[in-house]
């Protein structure tokens, strides 16, 4: 994404994107465990988790106060807080920050809600560009069956009920997720996603993720990232053994 600033700091930022039920969180967790086992300083940041903003978001959701614009802005505020007070300082310090969802979630979700593409891209212009952005590509039906099979109640905004797409929550969720999927697909090239086929077995997806991490970041991991364990072992060699 040309609009996001490049990361000039010693640490790395690895993010995952995909629609609900694509399995991205599971994969990021596995990747972060692996990186940690290599001795790297690894931190984790989840979408919509700023303690400063939480009460406001909760209040707005509970009372169904959001419009597409205020929904977009409160999530950008949440993101800004995590970036300013958590992600950036850690990346500057040389850690690997693994983020479950990033600005691209807003590019997809807010646009699916009716906010303009250019406005939301400008909104996140203060963000740094991730070193790696994985996109978990999954057909809508597969993701829906994972989500709808596993949970009973879909939440109001999660299902896009604010858009009046359908009175039926599941139907609304289907339509909304379909729109989000279209936005992800449309931006994949523009933002340079590393696309992972999320219908593959979990182990296979993880193997590919690790491979991409080593290919893209291999040398700079060794030279610039903070390591907790002072082992001279060659990361690539150790990784190869694991893979």
């Amino acid at each position, binding site marked *: 994404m040309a609009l996001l600033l490049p990361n000039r700091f010693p640490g790395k930022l690895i993010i995952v994107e995909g629609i609900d039920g694509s399995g991205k969180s599971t994969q990021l967790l596995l990747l972060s465990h692996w990186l940690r086992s290599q001795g790297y300083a690894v931190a984790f940041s989840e979408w919509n988790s*700023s303690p*400063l*903003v939480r*009460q*406001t978001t909760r*209040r*707005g959701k509970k009372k169904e*106060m*959001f*419009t*597409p*614009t*205020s929904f977009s*802005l*409160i999530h*950008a*505020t949440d993101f*800004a*807080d995590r*970036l*300013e*007070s958590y992600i950036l300082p850690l990346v500057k310090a040389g850690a690997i920050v693994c983020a479950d969802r990033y600005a691209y979630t807003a590019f997809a979700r807010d646009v699916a809600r*009716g*906010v*303009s593409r250019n*406005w939301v891209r*400008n*909104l996140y*212009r*203060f963000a740094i560009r991730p070193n790696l952005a994985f996109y978990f590509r999954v057909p809508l039906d597969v993701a829906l069956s994972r989500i709808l099979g596993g949970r009973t109640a879909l939440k109001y905004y999660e299902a896009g009920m604010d858009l009046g797409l359908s009175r039926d929550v599941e139907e609304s969720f289907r339509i909304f997720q379909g729109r989000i999927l279209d936005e992800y697909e449309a931006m994949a090239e523009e933002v340079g996603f590393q696309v992972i086929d999320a219908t593959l077995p979990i182990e296979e997806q993880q193997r590919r993720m690790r491979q991409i991490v080593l290919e893209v970041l291999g040398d700079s991991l060794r030279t610039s990232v903070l390591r907790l364990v002072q082992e001279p072992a060659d990361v690539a060699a150790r990784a190869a053994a694991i893979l």
Partner: protein
Amino acid sequence: MLPREPLQFYSEPLPGVDCAELHGRLIVIEGPDAVGRSTQVTRLRQWLEQEGHAVLDTGMARSALAGRGIQEAKKGNTLGPVTMTLFYTTDFADRIENEIIPALRAGFVVLTDRYIFSIMARAIARGEDRRWIERVAGFALVPHAVFYLRAEVKDLVSRVVMGRGAFDFWESGMDLRFGRDMFDSFTRYQKRLIKALDSMVEPYGFTVIDAGRPADAIFRELELRIASLDLAMVRSRTRPRRSKRFGMGSR
């Protein structure tokens, strides 16, 4: 070029809003901290209501959605500059969509204590990118008038000291510590704010009001200027008008 026509969006139309439906008047009072805006807003409201106008007055961090959240965030010590800018913009979005626009549809005079310009000035004073925040705030409506109460920093200092008697952390920009103590930081930060507001006078068509004068003199000027705006369209026909043209009968 920015649109000059009142009640049009600057650059970003809000979904679901037809500007042709907006019949009220939007009047903005801007200016740095401690310049005396809220005093003027209170008096203007009384006067406009006596004149028979339905008035909505609103101001920063007063939204149902984010007002309380902002107050809470300001109590801590972790509110970063971009986060603050966006939190205030969220607050503004909630107020424009749920208060200002409905009031304009109903033909009210909307009197707002600060607008996007204060959000922008604070962001610019903290070193954020001007074009970024201008576009973020682009969903604001062009007001009928922006009255910029302009004063020098020394006037603000004396108002703070004589009035509240102490410097405020945020009004002094202490989150970024522009100086060694509250006074130094206040002075430098407010200078930056004034500079940022000054830079908006021309592009955003501010009317500059000399706020280095007593409150009564400022009020009289605002009264005259607002009276010369065409408020007739929104003038209520149900209440008899006062005999004195800009009468302040109750005072």
